[in-house]
């Protein structure tokens, strides 16, 4: 049963109406991930046309699936601007979406049993790995830099 508590509920450290969280969710979609970046660029431009801010300075949490996750990593972990991210996406796409890999297996979602369908992959995972490592090195990080950050070592400002 619900307990009625007399303890005042502490609002999250904030003035105003207490609404202070900004969240961003990015769908997956292969090369079409570019579309979400072009939308986001427009949004950032509307905030400050002469100097569009970085999404990581405005969103408390960025989440993504598939290529949306890739973009979330670039914006959130690498703290890139949208323009930098678009450049990178344009650079990466021909590398990772070109090569055909054979004999990729995946569980068939239509028959949820263990059936597997053999198809040709269209993306190159080695190229993705290499592309990301190159990007990390260009940005002054180690190619095997960990994803995790601890709150005392990481500040939002690069």
């Amino acid at each position, binding site marked *: 049963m619900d307990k009625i508590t007399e303890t005042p509920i502490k609002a999250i450290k904030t003035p105003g109406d207490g609404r202070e969280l900004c969240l961003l969710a990015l769908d997956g979609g292969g090369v079409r991930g570019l579309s979400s970046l072009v939308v*986001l660029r427009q949004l950032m431009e509307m905030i400050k046309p002469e100097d569009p801010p970085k999404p990581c300075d405005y969103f408390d949490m*960025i989440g993504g699936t598939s290529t949306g*996750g890739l973009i*979330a*990593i670039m914006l959130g972990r690498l703290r890139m601007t949208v323009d930098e991210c678009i450049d990178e996406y344009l650079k990466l796409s021909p590398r990772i979406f070109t090569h055909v890999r054979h004999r990729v297996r995946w569980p068939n979602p239509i028959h949820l049993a263990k059936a597997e369908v053999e198809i040709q992959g269209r993306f190159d995972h080695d190229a993705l790995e290499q592309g990301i490592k190159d990007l990390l090195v260009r940005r002054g990080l180690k190619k*095997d830099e960990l994803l995790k950050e601890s709150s005392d070592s990481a500040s939002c400002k690069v």
Partner: protein
Amino acid sequence: MTYFSRFVCATSQQTASTVALSNYYSSYHDTRLWNKTSIWEAARATSAASSFFEPITIAGETFIDGATGANNPIQQLWTEAIRTWRDEGQQGKWHLEDNISCLISIGTGVPSLTPFGNDVKQIGKALLAIALDTEDVAETFQQHHTDLYRMNHAFRFNVLRGLENIGLEDYVKMDSIDTLTRKYNSMEDTRVKMEESSKRLKERFSMSQFH
């Protein structure tokens, strides 16, 4: 207070459950994974879209697919946000809805009908189901949180026309993606939503400057 942007990417495991990889610590996540995952591995894991990339194994966990379960990650992000901010000292009644200044969800168009693979019919159907799912997820989420949308605290952007003709791997069409999206950005309906959401983002940002 040190502050850093949190991000998370949802991926699926072989078991079909969704696993979150994040730059921040969460007691809900697998600590072993958190301690070991490198940035490139996370990139691989999240992009290991079923039909495209080969699976990758990190610390004994195999990731096969960032797309089948959740191509639109809004629900995972929501759950993640509840777990994150509720845990930070909140007791008793606390609702994420009351704390959202601005929630933005961005799509990548509606389904591509380009079939591929050996068993074209089957895989085409499967992909269609996955892609359709993103707008279904968006719609259901909006129904469940209708007040946030009505009060201009939540926004969904998605280019609903044109992108469906561009395959997920069709990088030569990137110019068209750019053009179609710019056109979408300039539509009156989009502009209004963008003005409202950028206003929210600005409010929140100027507020945070006082801390």
